């Protein structure tokens, strides 16, 4: 507990919570990781050395490029470089890649490469780093069509990471509105809305997700797929939140200040959104953070199964679908890397959410009035 001395200005509960959060080491670590991931996704086209659909069939499943400092003559170079690679089939028809050591391709910063629009606005062909053609820089290896996996992961992050935020936003608007209305009005409104929630919650999430997917055509243009995933995930997600918010609103609505607001002649809608729902805020923020992983995992699962984002568009889920051919993974284990990104993002959100919960301690905050 904080010792609040009277000489200081009284702090708002939010400020106090933020202070507690700053001292929470794992939560801050989670936050830092998330900031890095989101910034990387935002500037994906600049940071990625190649565009997400830049193919080079000759480099199918090229392994991660080795960064060299010492060249074939034994001279040391401060600037790391790569060699051009090419493959030959061995006796088992497996690709074996070898480096061509005659020509060095140093890594250049702000190198020219594929044209792109920085932040969707500024046209440029500069990338954070790159190597000159015909060599290719594969930090995390290449996929079956010789596309750079690292670049595709960065572009995929745009979809995978934003689905969480957008999906959560949609289902929270729904959940808060429905929960607020049900708890505030009670009676048959409450009954009807809650039965609706229970109907959704009675089916295991994964089965419901697949069944809802069946309602859409098997193939859709990429933007519609995105909207579809958000719709499916929010449809499943809002019910649980609405139920909890309804319970909280039920207890808050019986408080004196709500009666007072009603007596003064406040409109119901305004009372719900201005006076009642803000009191559920701390719970909502925590639960918001902790439910984002569910959306990321849902998108990944759908795309992994080929029902979501389609090639050539990248998302962490559909990148991982390349690793689904279990018999082949050990020839190109780097195809598992996108899964590690999902794992790290989910873990970071869990850390941050737990830290937020400790900081807010909802048991103390809820329904304080």
């Amino acid at each position, binding site marked *: 507990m904080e010792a609040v001395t009277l000489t200081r200005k009284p702090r708002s509960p939010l400020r106090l919570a933020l202070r507690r959060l700053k001292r929470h080491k794992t939560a801050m670590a989670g936050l830092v990781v998330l900031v890095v991931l989101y910034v990387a996704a935002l500037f994906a086209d600049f940071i990625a050395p190649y565009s997400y659909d830049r193919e080079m069939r000759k480099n199918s499943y090229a392994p991660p490029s080795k960064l060299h400092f010492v060249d074939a003559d034994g001279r040391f170079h401060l600037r790391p470089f790569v060699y051009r690679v090419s493959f030959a089939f061995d006796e088992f028809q497996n690709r074996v890649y070898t480096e061509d050591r005659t020509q060095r391709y140093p890594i250049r910063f702000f190198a020219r490469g594929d044209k792109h629009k920085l932040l969707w606005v500024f046209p440029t062909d500069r990338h954070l780093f790159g190597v000159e053609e015909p060599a290719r820089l594969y930090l995390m290896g290449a996929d079956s069509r010789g596309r750079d996996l690292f670049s595709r992961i960065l572009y995929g992050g745009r979809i995978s990471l934003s689905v969480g935020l957008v999906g959560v936003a949609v289902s929270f608007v729904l959940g808060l509105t429905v929960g607020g209305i049900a708890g505030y009005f009670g009676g048959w409104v409450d009954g009807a809305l809650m*039965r609706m929630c*229970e*109907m*959704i919650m*009675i*089916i*295991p*999430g*994964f*089965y*419901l997700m*697949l*069944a*809802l*997917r*069946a*309602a*859409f*055509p*098997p193939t859709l243009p990429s933007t519609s797929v995105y909207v579809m995933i958000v719709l499916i995930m929010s449809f499943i997600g809002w019910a649980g939140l609405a139920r909890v918010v309804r319970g909280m609103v039920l207890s808050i609505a019986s408080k004196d200040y709500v009666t007072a607001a009603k007596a003064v002649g406040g409109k119901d809608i305004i009372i719900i959104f201005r006076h009642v729902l803000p009191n559920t805020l701390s719970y909502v923020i925590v639960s918001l953070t902790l439910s984002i*992983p569910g959306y990321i*995992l849902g998108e*990944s*699962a759908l795309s*992994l*199964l080929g*029902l979501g984002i389609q090639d050539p568009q990248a998302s962490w889920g559909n990148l*991982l679908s390349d*690793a*689904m051919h*279990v*018999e082949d*993974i*050990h020839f190109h*284990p780097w195809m*598992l890397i996108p*899964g*590690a990104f*999902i*794992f790290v993002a*989910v*873990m970071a959100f*869990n*850390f941050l959410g737990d830290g937020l919960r400790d900081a807010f301690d909802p048991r103390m905050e809820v329904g304080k009035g």
Partner: protein
Amino acid sequence: MTSYIIRRLLIAVPLLLGMTFLAFMVIQLGGGEYFAELRLNPQISPETIEQIEKQFNLDKPAVIQYFYWLKNVLKLDFGYSFSRMASVTGLIRDRLLNTLLLSVSSIFVTWLVAIPLGIYCAVHRYSWGDRFASFFAYIGISIPNFFLALLLLYLASVVGILPLGDMRSANFYELSALGKVADIGKHLIIPTLVIATAAMAGLQRLMRGNMLEVLRAQYITTARAKGLPENRVIYVHALRNAINPMISIFGLQFSSLLGGAALTEIVCNWPGLGSLMLEAVRARDLYLVMGDLLIGGVLLIAGNLLADVLLAWTDPRIRLR
């Protein structure tokens, strides 16, 4: 108690009906062309398809179709799968057994590891073992099932002892009875480990928390004060009370496993309900999707009910009315 169970089931029935009705309509909305494949097959005449349509009332409006479906479901006939040319009831029965086998083995492993680990962590609080376990728990909670499954399958492909997915080896039917059991057991290991890792983390934390709470109770102090050996205090006095609330988790876990198991089943190629659902959705097989959805819902309700009943049965303070 009996009246409580009956009432719970009675509440669940309209919910299930509502959900299946909605799902039926939604899937029909997405365009119900069940015969796309059949129509392309030159060996099947358009008349045959029309006849099938009539036979399954597919020429009637969707709402009427739903009630025909419902009528058959009450007779435990879940309809016909047009993509697999088999009765949905039979398909689901086979797959349900496989899913239950996987669920039971994962629950078994989860409890076998999580409970002792939880006790250890509570007794040796803040020790290195406890810290390591809680770190491990975070990983277990955060790692996506499908990713862990792929990692383990990758490991298996490198080491080469365990089979890479599926439920039976190619030579399964030539094996002796004991060999068959061993073969399925070998195939069970990876999916079980995947599901158990995720479930273990939460259970271990819960057990640790319960145990810590009980250890703070006054009767534990009393037990220690009267000179009981520490082992007796922990394993007899504390454990019994700490494990009580866990029993309701058992039922909940059973129902939550279904969702988590589905993806693992698919990645590990385990022929369960989850992979059946995926195949059904891919083939746009209406009755198979509906049947799978319904069974999923029934299992979830059963799991939740089991949780409440077990809790009331073990804790005399709780009376279900």
